[in-house]
């Protein structure tokens, strides 16, 4: 914005969470202004606060910008095929219920190509955490529209405006019975880290939609060309309403229409593991 940016002479060598970050892999691949660094930071803070030993935490991600997050976390980490991290996490969690398995991946990965696995994992209530980073676009492949792109938004495959309405993800997850459903942005770092920590301790499928800036991709097509444009958007449009009517939390990104955030749902429901133990009893394995 016309101001000269002065780089610090010395780049810091350490971070207080180096035990949880693969710093040898930095610099990361993410663009300037991207929210994924913040997501990574919130995730490791949540792990540190989770009271679950890091060796028991596992991260699984799929393909895309967000998918790269597994490679930067010093945990058992799996970077699998496009759309499939939830199914991978289910297989892992079912045979190792003691592991705290978290899927962090993008909107395209988890609810577009991987939408089928998403809905069924929520329905089964497998005890995993799914942190979906929604940047409204396929960033890595060159900014194509997806199932979360707001109606009318431009992208490299919607030059006339996206012709399809997007998912309302908190409503979808809640309708399928998810015990924990939240939405935050990368501006709301404290609330996001707290929600992640809560998700790790929720019994059952915990879902957080994280609204994240993509100034280089989505933003360049939609007048949000700078990270600061997103911060302004979030500051001016976000409303925290934990008891919001989820039918009305769809995101339009239209001027004057709010982005509603909150920890919408926190409830108990029998998990896949609980129900499998019942099967083991009926089969005679357990008394």
């Amino acid at each position: 914005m016309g101001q000269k940016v002065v780089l610090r002479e010395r780049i810091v060598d350490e971070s207080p969470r180096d035990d949880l970050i693969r710093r040898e892999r930095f610099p990361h691949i993410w663009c300037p202004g991207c929210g994924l660094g913040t997501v990574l930071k919130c995730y490791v803070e949540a792990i540190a606060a989770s009271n679950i030993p890091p060796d028991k935490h596992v991260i699984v991600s799929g393909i895309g910008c967000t998918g790269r997050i597994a490679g930067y976390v010093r945990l058992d980490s799996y970077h699998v095929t496009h759309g499939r991290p939830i199914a991978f996490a289910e297989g892992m969690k079912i045979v190792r219920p003691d592991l705290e398995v978290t899927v962090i991946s993008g909107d395209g990965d988890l609810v577009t190509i991987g939408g089928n696995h998403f809905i069924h994992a929520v329905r089964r209530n497998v005890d995993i955490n799914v942190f979906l980073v929604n940047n409204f676009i396929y960033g890595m492949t060159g900014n194509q529209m997806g199932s979360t792109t707001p109606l009318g938004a431009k992208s490299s495959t919607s030059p006339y405006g996206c012709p399809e309405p997007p998912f309302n993800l908190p409503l979808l997850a809640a309708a399928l019975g998810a015990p924990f459903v939240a939405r935050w942005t990368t501006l709301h770092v404290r609330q996001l880290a707290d929600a992640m920590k809560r998700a790790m301790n929720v019994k059952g499928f915990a879902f957080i939609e994280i609204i994240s800036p993509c100034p280089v991709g989505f933003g360049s097509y939609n007048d949000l060309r700078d990270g600061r444009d997103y911060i302004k958007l979030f500051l001016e449009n976000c409303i925290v309403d934990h008891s919001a009517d989820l039918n009305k939390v769809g995101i339009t990104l239209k001027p004057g229409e709010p982005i509603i955030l909150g920890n919408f749902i926190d409830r108990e429901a029998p998990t896949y593991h609980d129900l499998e133990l019942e099967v083991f009893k009926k089969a005679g394995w357990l008394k």
Partner: protein
Amino acid sequence: MSGELKLLKPGTYFMMGNIACVEAALIAGCEFYAGYPITPSNEIAEHMSRRMPQLGRHFIQMEDEIGSIVAVCGASAAGVKAMTATSGPGFSLMMETIGLAAMLELPCVIVDVQRAGPSTGIPTFVGQGDVMQARWGSHGDYELVVYAPSSVQEFFDLTIEAFNTSEWLRIPVIVLSDEVVGHMYGRLVVPEHDKITIINRKRYTGPKEAYLPYSHESLVPAFVAAGDGYRIHMTGLTHDERGYPSLEIEDSHRLVERLVMKVRKNARSLWKYETFYIDDADVIVVTFGITARSSEEAVRRARSEGLKVGMIKLLTLWPFPEEPIRIASQYARRILVAEINMGQLIHPVREVAECPVAGINYPIGYAPPPEYILDGIRAAV
């Protein structure tokens, strides 16, 4: 009651092929099964759903075959033996993730009970049209092992073998069965359990600092599971020995070479085949699966007619048993490849054979009657 007691006891049984496959998997130590309904493999999932919980093991019916094979990979990454079963259309859906299992070096077993294709084909009829797909179906360079049973006993034996091979080489292994072998009832002899070889993947237990999950020091790196405390990274991206994504051509070359060579260099010990009357044979029938049963009878009848005919039944289709076929071709005048497709296995046979090779291709849908094979033999003689 301990799990050991609930495994199928040693003895002689009259059993369906698909059921024998399940009992073999249980004895091999399979702890996780994920599958999606598809004919003609359903008895495998059905029997698994009954048997696995009896042993405190896991059965899940996934939302599709992609989810099934991916969940199998997740379970394998957590350190357990895992399998899925399917047929043609589901097998097609699994291809991308078979490549992931090869790349992450996650042991797993995929049973394909072949049916008539292409596309939906005839779900209840037999086919052998997945020979090439089983070997080449996923993109990129990798190698895996494909076994093909022709009887209930072989379905049992090769399922255990598939688990052993997958654990030994850290690869996906495919049991390429077919509708007839899957649904036929036949004699099954289960040996004393302590006489059955069970192989478990080599686990790393050394110091954390020294561990390289994808070390090139040996062809098969030692495995660590999620939760073992090594905090490893596995990625489908081309990776270096640490498991980290790499754009270095050298890393790519060494990785792909090792993925391929671990199978190629062990090919001889992976080749399983049986020979019938080949010592003086002018004509040799090379075949596999249910077609081998018809062919065996056809060869017997040909012998009774005085024709010098032999047969090689391949139990390992991939890596292709080149040497036995090549040697046989140096003595025979002609090789006939019998299969229920328009000609698939004939290609690797032709590649190595030093005599003329022709196909006996039976229309997809039924097991060929021995007369059909015999007609082919007579024409060749």
